[in-house]
């Protein structure tokens, strides 16, 4: 390696994207209306300036430590590890760790991104914040940072999601946010994002749009990834401290892909680390419009500012898709994941609603951790994968959110009366 030039090293790296036009190979870009273009370019400039400003990093680190509660623990899930070893037909069973991002303030990884973006909004002199939300975790995190910095905010949330994630709607109100239910389409995350974009076009002068996942027009996929990469950076350090080496296997769920890219990105060039992204398989990939697995069941297209894998019909009309998890119920995915899929660096799989529900219950009973339905998808894949791996395989799963928001909905699915 010492003889390769830096140019070669860059070509050989999975971590050098996006290019200056925001492309990750075929994917990404800036596909927005002209009204928004000047602002997107301003944002890119503001982000580049912030990256070069030590004061920005210092302020973010301070907030991460004292407000969000970082670093989140890297936890050895002992009972689940034992359970998977009992299940193993090969006498193996990986050693399973959870990255406990559900312990962050507000209950998920979403706060990592919101703290970064609210500082950018302030640097840009914006006085009003908008956001879309699916599960409501991003909405709660946005409402939280807006309260913390005294900025008014409006959150767009699909009407279906308002119902199935009602505890988070209450939290947003209590934090002082205005929640706008969106009734178009299936009333889920895609529709919320359309409506947020319409608000932004209308109020572009004073408004900053905090996108909640590593998708949208450049530079959002890059900056959200960078703010979330604290997850993977901490895992590297924590794993070195715990085991004296890097993990062998990483697993995370994929909605738009922000928690996943945050865990994956610092490891992309570690060729021996196997990486799995878990999409929402809903009722099953074979059920038309019955899942939200855009990479396993979609095709490349352009929506919400970027080119990426999308659930769509052969006329280019976007499908609603379905997932039990509001946070994964989105017909697209961040463009960097589309590129990582096509390059083969990351393997993307899917699990069904029922498999996620099973994992949700297993985790609660075995580890005393009630996961959000989103990471329950990641765990459902760990349930399949861990028993097939050797005992010395170290696996890290991103426990990116807690399940408080889901307990009523899950109780309903399981037929419990409370």
């Amino acid at each position, binding site marked *: 390696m010492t003889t390769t030039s830096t140019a070669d090293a860059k070509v050989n790296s999975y971590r050098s994207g996006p290019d200056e036009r925001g492309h990750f190979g075929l994917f990404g870009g800036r*596909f927005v*209306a002209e009204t928004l273009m*000047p602002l997107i370019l301003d944002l890119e400039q503001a982000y580049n300036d912030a990256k070069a400003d030590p004061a920005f990093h210092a302020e973010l680190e301070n907030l991460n430590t004292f407000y969000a509660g970082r670093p989140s623990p890297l936890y050895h899930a002992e009972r689940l590890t034992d359970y998977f070893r009992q299940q193993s037909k090969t006498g193996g069973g990986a050693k399973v760790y959870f990255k406990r991002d559900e312990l962050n303030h507000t209950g998920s990884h979403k706060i990592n991104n919101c703290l970064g973006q609210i500082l950018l909004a302030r640097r840009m002199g914006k006085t009003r914040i908008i956001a879309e939300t699916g599960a409501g975790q991003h909405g709660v995190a946005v409402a939280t940072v807006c309260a913390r910095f005294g900025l008014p905010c409006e959150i767009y949330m699909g009407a279906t999601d308002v119902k199935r994630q009602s505890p988070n709607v209450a939290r947003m109100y209590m934090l002082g946010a205005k929640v706008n239910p969106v009734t178009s389409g299936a009333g889920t995350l895609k529709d919320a994002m359309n409506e947020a974009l319409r608000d932004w076009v209308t109020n572009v002068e004073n408004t900053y749009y905090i996108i909640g996942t590593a998708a949208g027009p450049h530079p959002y996929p890059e900056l959200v990834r960078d703010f979330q990469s604290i997850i993977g950076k901490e895992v590297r350090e924590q794993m070195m401290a715990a085991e004296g080496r890097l993990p062998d296997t990483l697993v995370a769920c994929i909605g738009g892909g922000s928690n996943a890219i945050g865990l994956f990105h610092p490891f992309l060039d570690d060729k021996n680390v196997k990486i799995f992204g878990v999409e929402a398989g809903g009722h099953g990939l074979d059920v038309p419009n019955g899942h939200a697995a855009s990479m396993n069941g979609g095709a490349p*297209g352009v929506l919400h500012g970027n080119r990426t894998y999308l659930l769509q019909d052969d006329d280019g009309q*976007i499908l609603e898709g379905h997932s039990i998890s509001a946070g994964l119920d989105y017909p697209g995915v961040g463009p960097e994941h589309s590129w990582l899929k096509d390059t083969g660096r990351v393997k993307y799989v899917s699990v069904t609603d029922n498999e996620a529900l099973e994992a949700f219950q297993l985790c609660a009973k075995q580890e005393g951790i009630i996961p959000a339905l989103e990471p329950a998808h990641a765990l459902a894949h760990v349930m399949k994968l861990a028993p097939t791996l050797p005992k010395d395989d170290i696996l890290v799963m991103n426990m990116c959110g807690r399940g408080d928001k889901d307990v009523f909905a899950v109780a309903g699915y399981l037929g419990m009366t409370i």
Partner: protein
Amino acid sequence: MTETRIDRRFASLKSEGRSGLVTFVTAGDPDYETAAKILAGLPAAGADIIELGMPFSDPMADGPAIQASSLRALKAGQRMTKTLAMVADFRKTDNDTPIVLMGYYNPIYVYGNERFLADAVKAGVDGLIVVDVPPEADDELCIPALNAGLNFIRLATPTTDAKRLPKVLANTSGFVYYVSITGITGAAAPDASKVHQQVARIKASTTLPVAVGFGVRTGEQARAIAKGADAVVVGSALVTAIEKSLGEDGRATGNTVAAVLDLVKDLAGALRAG
């Protein structure tokens, strides 16, 4: 680039000494047959240039009226192949009125850019407005469209400042579409005097005609906005007329075609009187 129907139409408007009327309706709204009748009737009703919407499931820059119009068309089975067929049908009886296809990138991308451009030219399309393909992505669709002989009409907006305007104008052809507000289609009407200043600003940087749209609903507004502009675009008001004419079952009635064309006559009359 060779002269297009759009170039010829603006030249004749200029010699008539009046501003043109650009009408927007969605292909296939409320159904293929009714939309084809509306399209066929637009030139006689006074439309100088026709913008035909390519329906999309997620029209992010459109307000409720055009969103609903798009969804009505899709529900009635509209697809890109049918939109192109509708233009080809129109061309059998009208070889002069320019048709600009307007919409979002994904249905074009999925159809295949090259195939789309070839089929659009064959059908008799004159220009394209693709809301979510900015100049930064000119190499993918704009340049190939120009090479295929189509006009590529760019939107300029109140946020397109002096620094950015040359970039927006660089590969624009046919005309420049000035979006009179920061907002979505169907929003409140803009202040005419502000629009005049902005149009003057754009005209100082280009010899292309400038059409102004977004928020224009009535003949009176059209006339006020038209001063200083080469054309005025009306869309949401027309698709709202379609919506209001529908029966309880959401289908076209005997009034639907006339409801749209009567409004077009009003608007055209007001512009000509101005």
